[in-house]
């Protein structure tokens, strides 16, 4: 055991090495993709890197038979933003409901879990059939949006459970006893505690939608989202433009993660400074 003090046991070193290997396993391939996206015009998909250049990044913007990446992005971004907003609103309000007893709470809980574990393709078949029956076309802003919500809401709710589990009801009672109204209690007591969790819900909502493949495949209709476009490129394109695209989207994801984590840290710091 690693106790509070004393010499480190040998297991510490063994597990440290194991952890380092795991991190290498996680990031190694991504780093090699990053390096090879600067491949020269020779266009080799493997190492070594020859005559480093930016030509494959330029190829993303000027599509020459590489598919419609800009168009796909212009659908994936608003879709992810809408899913993010809805996931935030719906899972935060529902999360608060679960702090009290209500009829059907167990059923709703298991329904949410079932929605989480149902295979994405199975669900997309159902959604596609439903839209056919209704005589509606499958679109990224209709059927795909709903398919994404069935996947992001369970995640949002699970995060809200863990956040609200830390919100002791006695804080609100104390605020009430001190004469705070309901709105003031929410603003000054509840919100500062749950805000980092809400940002986490937003990050999950955005990225899960932005990267989702199985639930979009059948439901997006005729216009591709970004993951669908990359999937098509996998079979058609055999140049490092795939790596360049991977570098750009990964960079975009890292930027979002940094913004989300940065704002969580900022909120925490401001809260502790006020005390």
């Amino acid at each position, binding site marked *: 055991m690693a106790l509070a003090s004393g010499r480190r046991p040998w297991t510490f070193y063994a597990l440290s090495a194991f952890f380092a290997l795991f991190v290498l396993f996680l990031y190694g391939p991504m780093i090699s993709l990053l390096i090879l996206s600067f491949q020269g015009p020779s266009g080799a998909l493997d190492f070594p890197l020859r005559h480093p250049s930016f030509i494959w990044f330029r190829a993303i913007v000027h599509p020459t038979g590489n598919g419609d990446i800009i168009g796909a992005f212009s659908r994936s971004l608003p879709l992810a933003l809408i899913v993010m907003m809805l996931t935030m609103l719906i899972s935060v309000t529902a999360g608060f409901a679960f702090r009290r007893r209500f009829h059907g709470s167990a059923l709703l*809980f298991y329904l949410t879990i079932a929605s989480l574990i149902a295979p994405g*393709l*199975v669900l997309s*078949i159902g959604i596609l*059939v439903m839209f056919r029956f209704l005589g509606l076309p499958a679109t990224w802003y209709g059927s795909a949006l709903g398919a994404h919500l069935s996947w992001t809401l369970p995640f949002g709710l699970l995060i809200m459970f863990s956040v609200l589990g830390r919100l002791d009801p006695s804080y609100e009672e104390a605020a009430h006893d001190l004469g705070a109204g309901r709105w003031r209690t929410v603003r000054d007591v509840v919100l500062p505690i749950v805000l980092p969790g809400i940002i986490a819900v937003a990050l999950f909502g955005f990225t899960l939608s932005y*990267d989702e493949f199985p639930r979009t495949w059948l439901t997006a209709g005729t216009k591709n989202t970004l993951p669908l476009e990359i999937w098509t490129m996998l079979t058609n394109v055999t140049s490092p433009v795939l790596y360049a695209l*991977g570098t750009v989207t990964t960079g975009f994801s890292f930027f979002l993660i940094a913004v989300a984590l940065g704002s969580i840290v900022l909120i925490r710091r401001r809260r502790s400074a006020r005390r």
Partner: protein
Amino acid sequence: MSGKSSWIPYLQVTPLVLVLLLFFVVPIALVVIVSFFRYQMLTGLTPAFTFASYLDFLSNPTTWWLYFSTLKFTLIVLVLTFVIGFWIAYFLVFHVRSLIIAMGLFLVCTVPFWTSDIIRMIAWRPVLGREGLINDALVSSGVVSHPLSWLLYSNFSVILAYVYLDTLFMIVPIFNSMARIDRALLEVAVDAGASRWAAIRDIVLPLSKTGIALGALFVVTLVMGDFFVINVMSGGLAGSAMTGMANDLQVLNYPRAAANAVILLVIVLLIASGIFRLVDVRRELVR
């Protein structure tokens, strides 16, 4: 809470209920209904109540082979992700003394989760390919004379990709469970003469069972419901239970695809309810 406000929770869950009804309950019900429809080439679907699609599906030997292969992959990936996830979480919670460093390392493990799965799979190409990094290193160091061909587009690369993509789903819940374990418990056990291994087996393992159950639930459903990792990483050579469904959809045989979907859904839900019977996940989550 006062009785007057008791209708509020119902109002709060209404949006969630509506979305789940519209985009989960109704679609799944439709899949079940369509699986009993009649399918004929050229004419397409006719509403009916027939088990023809189920019989057609179950009498096909490929079905059994694909399901067997999917279960095999699921089991292997489950074991690997559990072993890796458990020790990574254990290291972070019990061996890293500074909380800030532990949280930082935890984030290092979780960041890839928020990036694209497809891109992360593509990233293995220059590593595992015939002229990839590993083969280059093996050949130039003289370990092998010819590049290994089973590194990419094989069962090996499929399992590797599953472990690569899904281990995070094990680490996060197990980490959460372990972080709640009172360290004093372990100190007492060690002081009382328990070996390090006994403390892990009798204290850490039982107390992190909720996390293990949740992680297993994630990994089982991700691997069983997958068709695109296996497609990309096996180069189209291997298939999953879902591959048959995707093929049926392309020839518009919706009833057989739906029958396959229903069977897979039943298997996944049976496994999930088995896990929930072993561990009361709900009581741990909603408190």
